């Protein structure tokens, strides 16, 4: 990278971040008119850097230079006043606000009157045209797709006329089409003279969308390189410290009989007012991975919870090996052979010991309890078996807490616990989210092992590429309904993405094509 005055320089802080908030030892240099990628694995410290740049955690002592002058960013308001803006898709939003209100939030003083609103609308429409963004300004922000929500957040930043724009994992929850659109928008922002930074864990995204790239590993700056002088493999090596290994091979297995059959399953409302599910029908066969792909808010967790028995169905039926299990609750379904790897690490209770976590779905097991009283010695012995068999090395023993374990180990622990009970179908909700490369590969191997043991896996994912790589069949969920079904050999991730965003729907292709 050439010398000169940078739009933004982030130098090593005089007080480093603690282990869970890494990244402050990175020296990052952004230039006006260029797109900069901050590449790092999960947990490397990318979000910590983004937080520091937008004025969060000022006590951590980050040193930030703007146009060659040191600037203390004591709050997000100070960062905003200095022309730095953050776009984060998963930022909490006020779902009842309209897109227009979301864009105007925090820009100017108070609630704009009718005249100011009219003026603001004209300006927003001009920005939409300039940056090729399409949002419905009257729609509720909580009801629009992930892509449109991100575009609304971009418009908010553009409306404030920020000079330095930081995107935190902009493509994480987007379909390939939406991600392309977002990267094109970043290019246009850079062409307008802004300095753009985006964080990513995919070297390919850095290669395709950025001019410069800084690689972070464990909170340490590894290297800053202009993108034309490097390649994706070199970036991957810098990011992880090892060569890229191919994903575990998906062996050819003929799908067996139907294990789990869902017919017209409907759920009125998910937990915490989640997306309802409408008349979903699917079949999971022995020895196959059925991927249910959908964007956030499409009803993935509602469907998974309903299949696991956590929330009741309002209509339809579920059969496990031909037996109707619709009326059974979560524990009874678990005893019948439905394993559940819930979203994030909700499968473990951090405040309880490993023994108590092991007992979670075995409260009716005579090996663990006798007339309601816990058989402590047996439970501890079973916990040791569980820890040893699944190589849960982060846990000290039955008395230790899951808090001591890494994210990957916690996922592994839940998967192991679920598979230990003669599970015939495994429901896995976003099992790879938040895992680093090693942990991802490890988790994929485990899922493949489940498939090879002739059990059925239903994998819920928001990533079209992940669905293509792992699934034997893919169904797409949109607005709580199944809108398409594919075989990975006969479709592409882009095509699946079209269905995920609602741009296409099986049986209505002609209608969408004409449109």
């Amino acid at each position, binding site marked *: 990278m050439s010398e000169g005055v940078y739009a933004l320089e982030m130098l090593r802080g005089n007080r480093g971040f603690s*282990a869970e908030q890494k990244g402050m030892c990175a020296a990052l240099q952004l230039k006006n008119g260029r797109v900069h990628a901050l590449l790092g694995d999960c947990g490397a410290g990318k979000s910590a850097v983004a937080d520091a740049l937008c004025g969060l955690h000022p006590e951590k002592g980050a040193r930030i230079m703007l146009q060659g002058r040191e600037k203390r960013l004591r709050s997000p308001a100070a960062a905003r006043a200095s022309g730095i803006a953050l776009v984060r898709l998963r930022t909490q939003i006020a779902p009842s606000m309209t897109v227009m209100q979301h864009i105007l939030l925090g820009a100017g003083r108070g609630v704009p009157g009718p005249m100011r609103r009219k003026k603001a609308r004209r300006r927003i429409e001009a920005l939409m045209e300039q940056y090729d963004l399409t949002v419905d300004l009257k729609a509720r922000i909580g009801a629009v797709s992930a892509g449109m929500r991100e575009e609304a957040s971009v418009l908010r930043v553009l409306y404030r006329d920020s000079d330095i724009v930081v995107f935190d994992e902009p493509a994480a929850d987007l379909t390939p089409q939406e991600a392309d659109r977002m990267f094109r928008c970043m290019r246009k922002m850079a062409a307008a003279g802004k300095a753009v930074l985006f964080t990513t864990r995919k070297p390919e995204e850095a290669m395709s969308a950025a001019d410069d790239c800084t690689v972070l590993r464990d909170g340490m700056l590894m290297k800053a390189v202009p993108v034309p002088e490097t390649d994706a493999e070199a970036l991957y090596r810098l990011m992880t410290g090892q060569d890229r290994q191919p994903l575990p091979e998906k062996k050819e297995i003929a799908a067996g009989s139907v294990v789990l059959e869902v017919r017209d399953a409907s759920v009125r409302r998910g937990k915490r007012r989640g997306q309802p599910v409408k008349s979903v029908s699917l079949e999971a066969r022995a020895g196959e991975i059925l991927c249910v792909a959908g964007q*956030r808010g499409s009803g993935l967790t509602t469907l998974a919870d309903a299949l696991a028995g956590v929330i009741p169905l309002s209509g339809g039926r579920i059969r496990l090996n031909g037996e109707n299990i619709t009326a059974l*609750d979560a524990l009874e379904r678990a005893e019948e052979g439905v394993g559940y790897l819930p979203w994030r690490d909700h499968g473990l*209770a*951090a405040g*309880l010991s490993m023994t108590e976590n092991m007992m979670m*779905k075995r409260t009716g097991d005579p090996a663990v309890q006798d007339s309601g009283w816990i058989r402590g010695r047996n439970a501890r012995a079973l916990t040791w078996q569980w820890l040893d068999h699944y190589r849960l090395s982060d846990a000290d023993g039955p008395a230790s807490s899951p*808090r001591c374990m890494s*994210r990957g180990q916690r996922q592994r622990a839940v998967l192991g616990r679920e598979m230990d009970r003669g599970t015939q179908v495994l429901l896995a909700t976003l099992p790879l989210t938040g895992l680093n490369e090693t942990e991802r590969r490890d988790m994929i191997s485990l899922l493949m092992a489940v498939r090879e043991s002739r059990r059925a896996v239903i994998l819920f994912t928001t990533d079209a590429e992940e669905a293509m790589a792992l699934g034997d069949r893919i169904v797409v969920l949109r607005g709580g309904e199944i809108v398409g079904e594919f075989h990975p050999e006969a479709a592409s991730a882009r095509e699946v993405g079209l269905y995920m965003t609602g741009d296409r729907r099986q049986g209505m292709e002609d209608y969408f094509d004409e449109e």
Partner: protein
Amino acid sequence: MRNERLAVIWRVMWRAAVCLAAVPAVSFAVMTALALIREGAGLPDAAGIALRQGLLPLIRGGFGAGAESLRAVIAEAGVLMLMALSVALCLRAGLLNVGAPGQYAVGVCAAWMCAAVWELPWFVSVAASAAAGALAGALFGWMRRRSGSAAADVLLDALILCAVYAVIQRVSAQTAGGGAIPEARQIPALGKGTDGYLARPVTWGVLAALIGPLVLWTVEKFHIWGYGMRLMGASGPAAEYAGVNRKRMTVLCMTLSGLLAGLGGGSGALSGMAQGISAAEAGLDGLGAALLAGGHPLGVLLSSAAAAHLRGGCRRMGAPYDGGLAAWLICGGLMPLCGWTLRVWRMKAERRLRGKKEEAP
């Protein structure tokens, strides 16, 4: 990760130690200021008064006048233990029973009606107080299940307190003896003091209060039902995935909590202490003791004893201090505040260990 956890635990412990040191220091400063204002003395004299009349009697607490005062502390601690246990049970299940004063008041009312109005034997009155408390608890649980928030409990609590006081006032006016519970209808005493607040008897109710935490701890630790309750308190989603019916468990926990609070109220009323501890006092003290104990049943034994000890100390305070007001401020205000602060710190520390929150897909 383990080092981080130790660091977080160390931070919370350090803050707790600072709190412990700060409480007497702040109390002493406030007492000195009061002495300055009320006595018009110079600063050294005011500090002397604050020390002699305020801080030392407070710290000496229930140990001031030998066995008599110790007995009074034990009698008071018995009621507080049942109240604190009632709140602690809910805390372990991740629920904050803000309706405990109302459940206590219902227990007092039921015991009083049975003993003073209908002149039933004491054990029937105790059973009636427990049943009434359980019913009130079930009502609170049902409301919590429907609304999912503690705000409705606060309103219901206020309503119940008003209703109970109105009932007691109206009925006692029409009852011979002004509503006093005859000694024959009270819980048999193990011993009794002579004058003032020292006249509080140690009854069999105190023994029940001592055994209660042990029983609850055993059930929590070794029984599947207690395990389900702790699981719900540790992680609501994990409990749901493990097949625990959260709504049913909420109602059950609140019912049991109401039973304990009602028992506390009945035990207090039938020991001749109904005038000694009001429902609001018992509720706040119980909440403070439960929070200080971190919801642990055995910790409740110590924190309740400490609360009763401090209350005894407050009553020993001399001029220019108002012991009743001090007891209300310290046990009803400061203790819940300290307990809640410690709880919030612990929750924050745990959240930091777990990482950032994500939006559900």
